[in-house]
């Protein structure tokens, strides 16, 4: 496991504008997310499902000193949300790559649900739409990441971003509406 003080320092450096610190932080967070996810799946509680909220909070608890200030915390959660998104998108892309010639891979066994390719495709569509949103309103795309990929609650988001609940509500609502509309138009 990566050294905790070191990560806190990286985080502070990045908050202070050091992009190198961010680049070093990203793989650490990515790996930790994956590690914790694996441990959660292999864990004692068989049959439970992964929750973004739980994963992200656990990564935070494991990597970061509790007493960092809120700007650093905000940066960290934003990074976690981004890494969580990348993790899932990478996975969905590898599933897509497993299909040949663009045809859906469908082999079913009696009584089995069809392969979960649909949700992977849906995820990639969401990813694409978020990229487009980020082109003209990066802040809203970040907020969506926090809400859906890091699973933060409204209050947590308000605490982490420092935005007032009214601003947050307004921004999220528009971002969500735009995404829902874009997804609908793509379907």
């Amino acid at each position, binding site marked *: 496991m990566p050294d905790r003080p070191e990560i806190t320092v990286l985080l502070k450096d990045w908050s202070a504008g050091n992009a190198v610190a961010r680049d070093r932080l990203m793989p650490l967070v990515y790996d930790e997310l*994956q590690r914790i996810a694996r441990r959660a*799946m*292999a864990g004692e509680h068989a049959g439970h*499902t*992964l*929750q*973004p909220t739980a994963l992200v909070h656990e990564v935070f608890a494991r990597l970061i000193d509790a007493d960092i200030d809120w700007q650093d915390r905000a940066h960290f959660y934003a990074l976690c949300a981004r890494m969580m998104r990348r*993790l*899932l998108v990478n*996975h*969905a892309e590898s*599933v897509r790559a*497993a*299909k*040949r*010639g663009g*045809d*859906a*891979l*469908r*082999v*079913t*066994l*009696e*009584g*089995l*649900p*069809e*392969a*979960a390719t649909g*949700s*992977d495709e*849906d*995820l990639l*569509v*969401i990813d694409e739409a978020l990229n487009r949103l980020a*082109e*003209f*309103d990066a802040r809203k795309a970040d907020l*969506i990441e926090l809400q*859906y*990929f890091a699973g933060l609650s*409204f*209050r947590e988001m308000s605490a982490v971003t420092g935005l*007032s*609940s*009214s601003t*947050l*509500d*307004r921004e999220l*609502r*528009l971002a*969500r*509406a*735009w*995404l*829902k*509309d874009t*997804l*609908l138009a793509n379907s």
Partner: protein
Amino acid sequence: MTPELWQRIEAAFAQALELVPEQRPPYLDALAVRDPEAAAQVRRLIAADAADDQRLRQPIGRALETFGEELDDPWIDRRLGAYRITRRIATGGMGAVFLAERVDAQFEQQVAIKLVGTQTLAADAQARFRAERQILAGMQHPFIAHLLDGGTTEDGAAYLVMEYVVGEPIDAYCTAHHLPVDATLRLFKKVCAAVAYAHRNLVVHRDLKPGNILVDAQGDPKLLDFGIAKLISDTPDTAEQTVQRLTPDYASPEQILGEPVTTVSDVYALGVLLYKLLSGQRPYELAGLRPAEVERLVVETGPIRPSVASRGSDAGEALPAELDALVLKAMNPEPEQRYASVLALSEDIDRYLSGQPLQARAGGWWYPARKFLHRHTAAVGLAVTLFIGALVAAGYHNKTLTAERDEARFEASRAQAVTDFLIDLFRQANPNESQGEDISAREILDTGATQLDEHLSDQPRIRAELRRSIGTVYAYLGLYQAAATQFRDAVALHEDLDDPAGLGRSLSGLGEALLDLGQLDEAALIHERALNLRRQTFGDVSIPVAYSLSELGYVRFSAGDYVASDALGREALTILEQSGATDDDYYSNLLHSLAQSLQIQDRLTEAEQFFRRSLEWDLDHHGERHTNSLTSLHDLASVLVQLERFVEAEPLFLKVAAIETDMLGPDYPQHNLTLNSLGQLYQKMERLDDAERYLRDAVEHARRVRGAEHPHTAYLIVGLVNLLNERARFDEAQSLVDEALAIYAATVPDDYPHLATARIAQARTLIGLSRLPAAETAARQALAVCAAALPAGHWLAERAQALVDETVAAQSAGTH
């Protein structure tokens, strides 16, 4: 998207959302003139805003789920015989499917490996499994995926190695390629040929469905999983197990009922498949239904004809009615009534393709109806669309009100059947009366209501559902009497059917309609009945019971029985909490209603608690900038004023006022009420300058937004008059109170309750001006209004009486 455009969209979106929904279209219309580009986008965004976020939430949740499963998959990289597993394709209760490759890699060959069952097979079962495998491996047909190999793992689980087929499920293929009817039939004949080949080898498929029939790049079908169903489970299933395991849409009634399965069971599945391919629709929506419900739907109700169903979809080509007969014969619930073999089905398709009379043509009851419809489809079209729209809305409403999960699921699957029948019904409705004009939704409703019995005489269940849907739509249109009639019929039908869930919903609808009609006693009786029924059906602690309690509570509240109403409301709250159903606005609204009821009863400390809970919930779920949160905040502050905790109330009112202006704009109609509340608060705090400023602002706001001649403006003016009386500025007060009374005289009847307040204020002003006889007259007029408009002993009446006494005493003192 340019940043400038996005900024305009953002501003307009925020503005539009702050308006009540009815005010949005005019706002957007106005915007469309100024800025058509932004207006078009905002329209779409407003529509999207109303939709839930499952499209966002679900894929992310599911992606995480599959990701997590793969991380922990002990099967990946494992070797089975000559194969190495590379990826899990699907998982289910009965086993799993993997993608695998040959380890010896003499040539690259990908295969699909099916792990059948997670349990170890007993020795004799293993032997049977091997024997069956031999038969399946012997099947060689170009349209059947080949079984390559099989075995058991070291821990004794059986697996099969199959040809790995890349292709599209046949239904998706037909849709994607817009396959015309004739081409679809020719493709379907290839499927029949493969099934017939298997039947000659004494293998029944048992689970034919689109997911098991892939179409490859050459356009040829490939059937998967032949005989696997038998291989996996040699012991006869109970009906319950079969339904869980099989794809119920394609399983024949005899399979569902656990009766012997034969080659005509495959004929049934092929019939359902052909239905789907030709109409684009499934004949039934069976997922999640219990076997008894499936049986009832399939055996008693039957599907609507594919040619009718296909018109609901965007299938380009009209479906000839001859094919209805063919499809429905194949999927007849009675095995003896179906085609005797797949070959016979295939031959009838040949007859159709070559224009000969069909074997299936015998019955033909639908034929005249179809011709009739063909002539009138266009005229009926728009009206049906309108009506279905209303019905979908009604369905949505029902769903939020009946959140009990099983019930909702049943309702959802039922909704499809109901809608199908509606389309069918209205296509058969006689449009001659309308002379080719479009028929209004109301007319469609009326026609539907009168024709239901005739057209669906043998389907009481569907009829009951439709009666309730029509009732709900009537209620939306404000036609409560008509709504009550429909609900009553639905109640009677559900009673005969012994369907407590449906009966509960219909009773609930009837109760609401009766309340709207002002028949409170009857409404209470009906809701009580629904309540008792739901208690028996769902148990005391269940969401339907909570809804019934709160509905009954509202009736009691309307009747002025606050004690009973509160008790019911609290019980409903407790149940929602115990059921974990506290995330719906319904919960917060219930808290708020309880608080208001307590406030009316002057139980202010309790009212405060409930307003606080409601406020906390609203803030948590909607944030501060939401009209629910604002209302809660305002009402909490008003209770604090009544409790004389002015210092706590002040910041709350100020906050409401600030958010209102900021979020809802300067012309938000309710804003002057907040200003008025602030003015009255300062008056009580004896900060009279502040009080006057806010009360004057309130009046100005109302004059501007509501109009100078509006009774609401008069009401606010009277508030200002009271302050001026207190400040002994009686001349100013007099001209204002005269203005208020003139507005009332022009706009409201003589027994308008607020007239009493105005007359009392006037009496005070006149006393201040020492015009005692006129003051006495005003006080007596106030008393008369109280007598006409308010319950006996109301505090306003007491106040008016005190003023009468005061003026009379003063006058007699003056004369003596």
